[in-house]
């Protein structure tokens, strides 16, 4: 009996310690590239020299992370999570949690550095929060919104609805849907080129039909301007000084296009990649099935380095 009580107390003590879980502290001044690994629900931090230096194992089914304007606070969210968890990187621990309900699949920080956009698939809405997590506005959009993109010039928010065949455009002044324009089904991934009046939208395809094209619509009117071949399932776009990069996860390929939409280079990279980012003037790609990050030369599109991360890297978070 005494033994049982002892064991119980020991467990209580251990779980007690666990509840105040602390992780490797991340120095405030250190730039990093972090991967959100959704299979083992962890974060892998990689430094500028591409050395992983910390891994945070979070016991929550989070699917995304957002770095706040202070460059130290991060938000962890997931569709199945009741709360958004607020962590301090320098403190290496949980500092707060916001109760905003289930269904969050994406969070973005607006350019004012204070407003946060939370995409809720459960109620097909966009929630506007302040920096303290207090809800300011809620805007109803199409079915299963996923990708959001802020346009600076017209102060608009483009919401691409994955389960719908429309893109909802919200006026950030009035917090109202300005207009909607038709898009292809299962659309996801986007690139806004306001100076060219272009919004690039990719996708997965419908049913067993694989999306083999990327679509360029007018950012102002929503009119389809162009269709480009991008086999298969283009879901991520990136533009830098070297050109425009298109990541197709069906063929695990990266395509580099020039200004004239011509394919300059293409490369097979990673295994089932979902995510891509600019870091250190390189292009980094996360391979979901291979649990690796690939560092690619932006010019030659050659893989410079491969870094092992947690299981199922699905999103990249940068601090530069």
């Amino acid at each position: 009996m005494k033994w049982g009580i002892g064991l119980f107390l020991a467990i209580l003590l251990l779980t007690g310690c666990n509840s105040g879980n602390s992780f490797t502290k991340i120095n405030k001044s250190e730039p990093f590239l972090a991967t959100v690994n959704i299979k083992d629900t962890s974060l892998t931090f990689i430094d500028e020299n591409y050395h992983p230096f910390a891994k945070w194992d979070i016991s929550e089914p989070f699917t995304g992370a957002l770095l706040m304007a202070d460059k130290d606070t991060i938000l962890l969210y997931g569709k199945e999570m009741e709360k958004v968890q607020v962590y301090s990187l320098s403190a290496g621990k949980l500092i707060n949690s916001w109760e905003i309900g289930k269904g969050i699949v994406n969070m973005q920080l607006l350019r004012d550095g204070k407003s946060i956009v939370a995409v809720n698939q459960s109620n097909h809405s966009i929630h506007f929060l302040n920096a303290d997590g207090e809800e300011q506005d809620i805007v109803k959009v199409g079915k299963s919104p996923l990708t959001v993109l802020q346009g600076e010039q017209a102060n608009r928010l483009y919401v691409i609805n994955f389960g719908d065949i429309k893109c909802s455009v919200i006026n950030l002044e009035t917090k109202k849907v300005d207009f909607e324009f038709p898009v292809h089904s299962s659309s996801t991934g986007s690139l806004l080129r306001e100076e060219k009046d272009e919004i690039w939208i990719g996708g997965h395809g419908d049913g067993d039909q694989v999306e083999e094209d990327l679509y360029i619509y007018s950012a102002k009117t929503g009119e389809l301007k162009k269709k480009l071949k991008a086999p298969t399932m283009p879901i991520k776009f990136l533009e830098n000084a070297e050109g425009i990069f298109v990541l197709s996860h069906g063929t695990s390929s990266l395509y580099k296009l020039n200004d004239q939409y011509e394919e300059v280079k293409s490369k097979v990279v990673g295994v089932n990649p979902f995510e891509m980012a600019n870091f250190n003037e390189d292009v980094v790609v996360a391979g979901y099935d291979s649990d690796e990050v690939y560092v690619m030369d932006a010019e030659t599109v050659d893989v410079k380095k491969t870094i092992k991360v947690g299981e199922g890297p699905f999103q990249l978070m940068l601090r530069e």
Partner: protein
Amino acid sequence: MINKWRTLSFKLWLTIITAIILSVLFAYSLSQYYYKNLYVEKLKTDLVNEASLLGADYSGGEISEDFKGKVEWFNSKNDSEVFVVNNPRELSACLPFEINYDTLISEEERQMLLDGKAVEKEGYEKRFEKNIVAAIIPLIDEDRLEGIIYTYIPVDSITVLLKEFAAKWMAAVLLFLIVAILFTTKWLKKLVSPIKEIETAAHRVSEGNYDIQVEVRSHDEIGKLAIAFNDMANSIHLEEERKKEFLENVAHELRTPLSYVKGYTQAILDGVVKNDEEQRKYLQLISREALRLQRLVGDLMDLSKMDSDPLLLNKIPIAYAQFIEDVLVKYEPIIKEKQLDLQLELDPDPIIFGDEGRMEQILHNIFDNAIQYTDSGGSIYIALIQHKEDCELLVTDTGNGIPEVDLPYIMNRFYRVNKARSRFDGGSGLGLSIVKKLVELLNGKIEIESKEKRGTKVRVILPLIKEEWNS
């Protein structure tokens, strides 16, 4: 009516039928087990082997139309369905994005395939809307799941086969059960009917009907029971007869002296007796008959005692030869009177363990008979011979002997050689049966040999006291 469920035949029937049904169920489970574990497992292994052989032709890179064509060709020649899939949407490549579509493989299966493992499936497949046994093997190019080879066999065909098999099997089982039940019932009836006969016969015996005999049809336990029953019924019958005879004998033996006593008494009372001399003669006759009655009652009591309490003997060691001589002393006057030639040849060694009174009773009876039935001038030879473990007393006379037909029954109760012989010259007919009983109680045996008109030889064999007693 007897409760049917309590009968032995029903219990046996139930046991056998239960055993048969259990065997059938066991056989069915076994066939299911073999189907599941051998047939389905073998099918899966075969499918995996087949797909792996096809997959060996894939040399990496994008899956070519040529490769697909080869697989299609193979499919057209083969029983199982086999196809190549390289559509990433079918391969769960879009996950974790939520897609409103049932992919061919789940995310877990994708992980297995990415690890290079084959996936085996069994059950209903929504995509094909049928039950299947399937195997999936991955086509991997540098960690990338480029495609899969999916091969399956609709188990509908197996189910149909099984249904057909099950129908036939059920019919066979039903037929087998009917035959088994009919056979078992009939066989049990045959098996149990002698027991019922014995039961009926036992009831009749208990009602006093001893003539009944059960027919013995077999040599098994039931047959032996029937034989034992018949023996028992016979024994009871014989015993009843003996008892009856015994009572008749007792009544008869008592009636004669009683009628004498009554007759003489009546004669005296009626004044038929004229003088004192006659009266005295009559009273002597009455006294003699009373004595006879007394002896008879005494003998009967002895027999009864010996039957009910075999431990009544008060055994002590007896020097046999000396004992015989002591008993013979009492016979000297009568031997002299009858002018008999008595020869003795007694071994002085034998010591027996016996009851003095009873031993005397035995000897008296034997000597009485020898002297009584030997005519004047005859001879009597008495010998005591010691053997290794027992001793033998031999009494031989030259009397008139016992007819051969009577010899086997001579020691039965109330048996008389000369049925007409008056009781004046014979005893009650109980003497020898008492002797036999006493000798048996002393663990010995008695044998009588006789030839009519030549004489009789009586041999009494009794065990000697063992060495430890002597020492």
